[in-house]
């Protein structure tokens, strides 16, 4: 596997989160329409991106802490179980926030985006990447399968690449939130939502299940 693939997957997951109307761009568009213009859209995007990134960072930190302190195999089972349980919970009961409104400031939008990303399990979707770190994301030439896990552990334990992973995901997210919000606000208009707002819940369910399996199998 090329060493660039994992970075592209991280970026692609960011883009996937970014185009989901429930993850922020639609809120930015609505605020632009309510407050009259592009400034409203652009004002909303930094806190929305910050909230999303903090949610992802939270999961990344948890996985990192767990990997540096817990044995590999039980940790994988545990992480897969968390993913399966969360996916099933989302399938049975998907809630939406009930405390927000349209008169929102920086803090409201950051918290809203953090909660939306966390409640959708956006960070959990990155878990396989974070688990497959040593053979996947290490920016040096591809690591040979013959190398032992023990040999790679020090690299995996270094936090810097983990931050890089979160940053790459966040940039994919930001690029697509910004692009979608501006295109919808300036060109397309919100009427297309009626036809194109697909129910992503079941696709998210499938994605989370695949992530759980990946952790177990690979």
């Amino acid at each position: 596997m090329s060493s660039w693939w994992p970075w592209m997957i991280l970026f692609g997951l960011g883009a996937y989160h970014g185009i989901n109307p429930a993850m922020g761009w639609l809120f930015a568009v609505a605020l632009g329409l309510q407050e009259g213009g592009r400034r409203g859209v652009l004002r909303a995007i930094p806190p929305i991106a910050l909230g999303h990134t903090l949610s992802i960072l939270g999961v990344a930190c948890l996985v990192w802490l767990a990997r540096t302190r817990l044995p590999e195999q039980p940790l994988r089972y545990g992480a897969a179980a968390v993913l399966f349980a969360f996916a099933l919970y989302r399938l049975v009961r998907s809630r939406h926030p009930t405390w927000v409104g349209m008169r929102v400031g920086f803090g409201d939008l950051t918290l809203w985006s953090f909660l939306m990303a966390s409640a959708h399990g956006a960070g959990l979707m990155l878990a396989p990447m974070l688990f497959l770190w040593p053979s996947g994301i290490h920016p040096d030439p591809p690591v040979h399968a013959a190398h032992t896990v023990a040999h790679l552990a020090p690299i995996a334990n270094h936090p810097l690449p983990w931050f890089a992973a979160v940053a790459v995901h966040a940039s994919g997210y930001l690029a697509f939130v910004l692009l979608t919000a501006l295109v919808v606000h300036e060109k397309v208009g919100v009427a297309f939502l009626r036809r194109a707002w697909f129910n992503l819940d079941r696709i998210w369910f499938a994605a989370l299940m695949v992530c759980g399996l990946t952790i177990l199998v690979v």
Partner: protein
Amino acid sequence: MPQWKPDPTFYPSPRMAMQAPPETLAYLAVFNPQKDGRPDAIAVVDLAPSSPTYGQLVGKVDMPHPGDELHHFGWNACSSALCPYAPHPHVERRYLVVPGLRSSRIHIIDTKPDPRHPQVVKVIEPEEVLGRARYSRFHTTHCGPEGIYVSGLGSPEGDAPGGVFLLDHDSFDVLGQWEVHRGPQGLAYDFWWHLGYDTMVTSEWGTPNMIENGLNPDLLLSSKYGRHLHFWDLRRRRHLQAIDLGAEHQMVLELRAAHDPTKPYGFVNVVVSLKDLSSSIWLWRRDNGGWSTRKIIEIPAEPAKPEQLPPLLQGFKAVPPLVTDINLSLDDRLLYVSCWGTGELRAYDVSDPYHPKLTGSVHLGGIVRRTPHPKKPSQPLNGGPQMVEVSRDGRRVYFTNSLYYSWDEQFYPDGVRSWMAKVDADSAGHLTLDPNFLVEFDGYRSHQVRLEGGDCSSDSFCYP
């Protein structure tokens, strides 16, 4: 069951909702005024002009118990499901949420398998609400961003305060009292909101004890019925401001906020003025961060001979217009006003909300006039235009003639014989009574009309 795509009847903005296909069915709350053990019902009227049963009752679903007094009702979900901050766009507009104003039971009625023959699929007993909110006598229901909101006129004992509680839009579980801090608010009736300004507005009729045995003249003459508007922080559920419209203004009822979420104003009707029996329409609008009101329309009482009047009004020698319902077209341009006493439906152009212009009027029924319908010109009608509902495209207006059982008996002591009529409205607001559309209800009295797919008082929007 969640859907793959948003319900096709959800529209991001009121402008887009005006492009919706014309309605083909109406649902009506009809109650049984005779104490004969037969229950109230939701009736279904065919509105497709091409159908052989156009303008006829084509279905009916009985409630499981008698004596509910069905009154107002609403949908489980509507266009507010597309709001960006609390999206649930894949819930269907499918269930009618139908409270009994007297029984405090809430019926959930499924319109999907057969829209002409809906089914009662769940009944929420009053005790279930009491476990979470001390409210009773449920009136308005609105589908909103957080779930289904329902107002109650008072406590189970029939006293103040009345207020709002929430139902879950998936399970119909009672979630609890909406208000966190109610301030001076005690009386309740209608509520609606400005989603773009996170503001709820509530109005005042009277407590159950003040209304259930009929209009009480002593309470009325001492200004005890509702006279305030209340403004609330919709997010934090806190009372912000009460506006007293003045002691002479009694019964502040139907709230019609501008549908465009960027417009911070709306209209409300006051049923009667103690000074001269006139009715009035008030504008509320946002003003320097707060809210203020102004009377924009006053409709005078009409002189009448005592022998033409019911005992309650004989001393006044006048028939009050009794404006008991209003409705606003989705483009916020035409305001429809029901004068239940004088038997008139009016339309006003409110493009400039401060300076409304009367654009149309039709007469039907009325305490004195008893104007017949062109379909049965020799049959005087009683009752008058009351609950009024407007099609999404704004071209058709439907209305019924009963108010509330014990009050019907005071103003129309000969017993309201119930009918539903329709007017066509052109873009300038001229009204023409449809000479072929007159639905009569055998022994039942019809109240609120809801149109299939949504109407001008069912949905709220987060995009302009």
